[in-house]
Structure formats: C-alpha cells, structure tokens
C-alpha cells in the first residue's frame, strides 16, 4: 500500500498584486495552509508540519489555526463553498503536477461540473495558470474551458455565491471572477449593444454574488443541460454560442 498523496492548499489571507517587467507578480500573506491527503472521496485535511524557525509562539498559533481548519474540513463543519474550494485547489494542483506541460492539460485532465460551488475549480485552474504558470489570459481561458464540461442536472444545485465568501477563501479568485464577468458582459454587449437590462439578466456577477452556473456555462467548452435550462436561465448564452450546448 503506497503512501497517500499530499498537497498543500492555502486558505484566506491577502493577495498582493504587483505589476513588474515580467508581468503580474502575486504574493500572499496571512494565509492558512492545510494538507490535502488522499484522493477523491477519501480526501482529508491535515495540518502541515510546523515551521520551527522564527517566532515559536506565532508558529504555534498558526499551527493551531491550521489544525482547527483541518478538523472542520474533515468533520464537514464548513460551508459547501469552503469544502469545494479545498477539493478543487488540491485537484488542480495535482493535475498540474501530473502534467508538467500545462498547455496539454486538456488532453489528460477532464472534469465535469454540475453548476454548483465545485465550479470554483475552474477559477482555481485559471488562477494557477495565470499566476504561477504565467499563461496568457486568452490561452488560460481556453485551457480552463477545455478541461471542464458543464453537465447541469435536471434539478439545479447551488445558489449564487457571495463574492465576499469567495474572497475569504482566495482573494485572487474574486479578481478573476470579476474579470471573467467583464469579458462575459462584453460578449453580451457585442450582441445586444446598449441593452443593459438583458446584459444584467445574464451576467455572472449580480448584486455582489457570483452565479457559478453562468460562470461555468460561459467558460466551459461543452455544456450539457436540459431544454428547460436552454429555454430558461441559459437562454441568452445559448443564443450567443449555440455550438457548445447539447441537450440532455
């Protein structure tokens, strides 16, 4: 029996964005780290090995925070979004570890989304591609879109998520969601210039909340859904990009 795979996942903190000659450099402070151990349904959280150097008391406090977060993750005493983020961040990191050439990632890494909070994996992949792999924006969007398929169940899962909740998990993800929303609205604008009412109805971000179904439908290269979804919430998007939609 082999050793279980371990991956560090960071929660919260502050992202510092600095534009340099190399492009955008992102650094973090105040994050809480947990180890994701195992795979799939067996994925569990552990506190990482304590850092002994430096301020022992601060290190102890940090470890305590990590332990507490790990316990809450393992016991399920967390929000669905936090759980989804934990799994998504681990999944994405491992996929990229397994595929050193990230440009070919869609060939080996394919995931299905169902329109709920697990859609944060899309944003996480995008974030890592942009911030760590230094992919170009459009290239990263294409790769992320090709890695994920949206398959909406007959009964919708997940409600719009407050951006503040996403920000508490990964600040950069909110920046990216807003950027994706801008791009999405621009495409709507190109089709219905000036029609803010229609654009607003189909936006990803509305009233400080992110619609992960709309986000996934906007980014994923393939969308499977019922005809009710096509005729309902995804109607505008369907008329925008009919080729990527398939009826369940």
């Amino acid at each position, binding site marked *: 029996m082999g050793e279980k795979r371990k991956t560090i996942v960071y929660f919260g903190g502050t992202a510092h964005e600095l534009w340099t000659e190399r492009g955008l450099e992102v650094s973090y402070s105040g994050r809480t780290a947990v180890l994701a151990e195992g795979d799939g349904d067996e994925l569990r959280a552990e506190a990482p090995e304590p850092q002994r150097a430096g301020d022992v008391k601060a290190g102890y406090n940090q470890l305590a925070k990590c332990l507490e977060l790990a316990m809450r993750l393992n016991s399920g005493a967390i929000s669905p979004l936090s759980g989804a983020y934990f799994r998504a961040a681990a999944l994405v990191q491992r996929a990229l570890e397994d595929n050193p050439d990230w440009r070919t990632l869609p060939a080996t890494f394919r995931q299905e989304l169902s329109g709920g909070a697990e859609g944060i994996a899309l944003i996480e992949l995008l974030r890592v591609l942009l911030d760590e792999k230094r992919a170009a924006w459009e290239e990263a969007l294409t790769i992320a879109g090709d890695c994920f398929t949206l398959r909406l169940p007959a009964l919708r899962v997940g409600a719009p998520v407050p951006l503040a909740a996403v920000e508490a998990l990964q600040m950069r993800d909110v920046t990216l969601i807003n950027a994706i929303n801008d791009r999405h609205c621009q495409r709507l604008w190109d*089709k219905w*210039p*000036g*029609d803010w*009412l*229609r654009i*607003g109805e189909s936006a990803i971000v509305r009233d400080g909340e992110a619609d992960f179904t709309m986000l996934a439908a906007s980014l994923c290269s393939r969308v499977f859904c019922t005809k009710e979804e096509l005729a309902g919430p995804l109607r505008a998007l369907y*008329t925008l990009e009919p080729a990527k939609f398939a009826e369940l």
Partner: protein
Amino acid sequence: MIVSELTPYITHDPARERCHCPLGAVPALSTLRLAFSDGRAAVKSAELIVSGDDGLELKYDMVPEGGDWAATISVPETPAALWYSFRLTLESGELWLCAAYGGRFGQLMSTRGEGFRLTVHERGFETPEWFRRSVMYQIFPDRFARDGSGTARRGVERHIAMGRQVKYHEDWDESVDWQPNSTEGFYFPLDFFGGTFRGIEEKLGYLESLGVGVIYLNPIVEARSNHRYDAGDYMQPDPILGSVEDFERLCAAAGEHGIRIMLDGVYSHTGADSIYFNRDNHYRSDGAYNAGSRSPFYSWYGFRKWPNEYRCWWNFPDLPEVNEHDPGWEKLVITGEDSVVKTWLRRGAAGWRLDVADELPDDSLALIRKAVKSEKPDAVVLGEVWEDAITKFSYGSRRKYALGGALDTVMNYPFRSAMLDFFCFRSDAWALKGFLISQRLNYPLPMYYALMNLLSSHDVERARTSLATRLDARGMTREQQARFIVSDSQDERGAAMQKLAAVLQFALPGVPSVYYGDETGMNGMLDPFNRAPFTMGKRPLVEWYRTLGRARRENDALSCGAVAIFSPQADVLAVLRCVSGGRDCFGGAAQDGAVLAVVNRGGETREIVIDLWLDNTGLSSSELDGLRALGLTGGVCLLTGEECAVAEGLVKLSVPPASARLFKLK
C-alpha cells in the same frame, strides 16, 4: 458626457413595454407610461421632460414603481415629433438619462443630451388596408412594354407636330440617350421607346404572377420629356402612352387581376412647355409665359420679372414652380369638382404618389388628402420623401405630413440605404436591426405598415448594380456611368445579395416595391441608365420574386402580422412576422400564423439560435403572448423545403453562406 458606474443599472429601452407602454408612436391625447429602471435604488427623485419644436417643454414628476421610476401621461393633443429625456436627482447630484445607440437605449449624462423620440399622430389615422397588404410594382411607363397598335408612334408624331424635338427608338434594345443634346450642352430626356398603357395591360398576367397588388406608374400625363415630370397637360394622358380610354381599360383590366393602379402627381411645378406656362407656344392656350397677366394661369407662377425671370424648381428653367396657395391652381388641381386629383381617380386610379411631397405645403397636402379620400375613400396618398418623414425639417419648419393629416405613407428611401449598406458590407446586422426597430417605433403604425419599401427606383441606381459594384454612382459622371460595365463576377455577387435583400423586403412590414426589371436582373446606374427598356438580365430572379410574392399573398402573417427583428450575428438578420387571435395589428381579420425570414450575407455557414420570445425586438407583450399561444414546434422553408424545429421559442439553424430561409412556422 460622463460614463457613470450607474450606467448599467439606470436604463431605458423604448422597445420594452416595461419602459414605454404602449410601444411606438401614439395617437394624440392617449395615455402613455414612460419609465426607466433603477437597479441600484440610487435615484432620489426623477422628472420626465418632453420637448418639441417652438420651445415646447412639458415636465412630469416620476414615481418609484417596483424598481423603476415611471410617469403616466396624457400625450399632447397636437400631432408632433417630440423628444423626451429623464432628469434624475441622486446623492451625488443631477444626471440626465438620454438617448444613445441611435436612440435605442439610454445613457447617463452629466448634461442634457439627445432625447428619445416620441411620435404623436392624429387620432383615427388610418391607411388603406388593401395597400398595406400589397406588393408594389413600379413602372416607368415609356420603358416597360410596347404594344402593336401603333399608338406610341402616332403619339410621337403628335409631339413632333407640336414642334418638339423628340426621338423615337425603333429598336427596344437600343441604349438610352444620355449625351448632351442641346445647344447649351445639356442632356434632355427626349428619347422615347414607346411603352404604352396597352403594353402594360398585356403584361398584367405576368405582374399577377409576381403577386403584385398595386402598380405605381411614373407620370403619365402629356409632357415633353420621357419622364413626364414636366407636365404639359394634367388632364390628358401622353398620347405616346395612349388615350383616356386606354387608361381606363388598363385600370379595369388590372382590377380583374387583383391589381390597382397608382399615379404620380407632380404638383410643385409644371413644365415650361405646358398648357399653363406655354413658354414655347406649343399650345393654343394663354399661358403665363406667352400671355402674361392675361393668362388664367399667370398667378400660379412667381415671376420676378415677366416673362423670363420666374421661380423654378431647383433652378431648372424647364420646370417653373407653382404657388400652391393660388386659388385657381388649387381648384384646378385639388379642390374643384373635376380637379386633376379627382378626375384621374374617377378614371380608375387607386391613389397618388406625390412628387417632391416635402416641397408642397402641409395645408396643400392636407387638401389633397381630403380631395382624394372624398372621391375614393380607400385611395392611397403616398409622398416622395427621402429622409425620415417624421423629423423632416424643410422650408423653415418641422413637417407634419406623416402624422395623419396628409400622407398615408412615404417612399422609404432610408430603408433602401440601410439595406444596401448591410448587403454591401458597409454596416452589420446590429446596425440594420437598430434602424428597422427605430422605424417600427417612430412611424405611426398605420403608416409604418404602408411604407413603400423600395430597393430601386427611377431616381437611384438599380439595386442589382449597387449590390454588384458597391459603388456610389453619385460620384461618377454620366459618361463614366454610361461606360461602366458590371462584370460577370460582380453581377453574380449582386444577384446573390439581391435575393437576400428581397427576402427581407418582402418579410418586413410595409409594401415591398419592385422597380420594373429588378426581378429580371437589370443593371443600371443613375438616371437615365436606371430607366432602360424592360429586358431580361443575365441572372434573372423572376421565380424568386414569384415565390416571395406568393408567400406574402398566402400568409397573412407576412402581409399584416406583427414584427420582431433579430440580429443573431453580424452577418445574419432575421425577421419574424406573426398573427395570433385571428386579428392583425389593426384589428382586421387575419389568419393565425408565423413566418421567420433569415438571411446570412456572409461567406461562411452560420450556426445560430434565434430567440423568438425576446421582449424588445418589436413585439408588444400581448403580441408576444399571442406568439407563445401559437405553440410553434417547427417550420418548413418556403424557399428550400428545409425543415426547422422550434422549442420554447428557440430556433436553432445552420444558415449556409449568402443564403436566405423563409420558414413558415407551425
């Protein structure tokens, strides 16, 4: 102007009943609700400002209503072209919500900008139903069809006997004259090919097969030139065309084919060579020129110094202008028991196209309308107007002829420009849709459904030539135009685009007007090259036009249904027409149904989805409800036989390059 972060949240869309109810132009004194959305609840108070000419400004307080701010008003009693905007008070100060994107949507501004348009028309404004449902065919009478009776040749001899230097083309296939033919080096259109009333009569079966319901004849009265816009005698037909009896027989025969005849009235001026002016002494009359103040017609004209200094139309000495307020002129042309206007209606005409209507005074136009309707209540009055007929400003005032008291309808030249721009790739489907919806919203509905939607006429290049060459012939000399040859590949492109343009022309509300020879693929630059004898071009589209005419005749949805306009992609435009509840937009009986026209001008197949249920494409909410109630599930293309599926108002299509579809939905 500022771009406010509130822009996406504070909006107004005149094509949505939520913002503008009822949609479009409204009758005087009717109730209208105008509203804007306030998605951030940022507005503290709001005022609706309605403005018009002569300093008109009306202010209405607005009230919050479920996320919107609204004002319900009684529109003014005087028909007028008006504008409105919204003055908003926010925490941060005052902002204006004004028109942007061609008037289609709102834009927040720091100062007052362009207003949204609001057309108020006369209560009870009606236009003839038969006309709204018709397909029009425009004929330049000298150039459509000869007959074997010798009428034309005898007519030419009569002109020559009067002393006129006219020419008769023996061969129908000769080129039109265009070279200077006067000592001053000008070109005068004095060459005749000899088309006649009987010639037209012999082609009525052909016209019926095209689905034609009304023939518009360019002037037919006796005149010196081949275009006859220089009337010599208003009461007599030109002898080259035939006699009064020939005309009456033509009208009667046309009636048997379900076709009516409309005439061209040229009333802002006469010919100098006329019974009324008689500059050349070709008539035995005491004309204003040859007899001076002794002439009963002297007061018609504006002599600065008799006889050679007089007002003339666009300074053409051959076209002396008349004073339309002269009682004698008014009686002879309009009001008299046997006036020109009434006499020709009695002879069988079904209406008048008024030449340069925007140069006739509004009260003269109103008198003409009254005379026409008193003589024949269902006769039509159509005006030559080149611009937006609602906002047209001429001779120092805003014209009101399109608001119900004068013209039933106008020549829709802006439609032609917008269509040619689209099919010549000078604009895209979004721009065309914006234009088409603005016409839907800004013209009084009775006029909108009667607009003469033309692609060609005697005054502009033929559509085939425009679409083939993508040139503006106005920048070319007559000589250049005469020598220009439309290449085979250009003609092929022109034919392909003309087919698509015709589909939209027949699918949109209004009266599709086919200029003689457009259906046979004739080319032609500007006058006189657009007036060549009727012939078969290299790539005729007669069957195409027949199919479109049949579709329009057999589907009430196409002839009188409500309209929605879509632009799913830059190269693709779609038009939906629908009737539900057994009634058309005017409450007339009509067969339920829906027809969807789709054109793809581009060079690639387009995968598109059209959302028929979109709420701001031209349909009112009751029309949308009616459309939903039709329970559409599919359709068959009347052009190709191809089928399509409709699910929940969504139509997914694959439209090949440079192609059109006309789905009858069911």
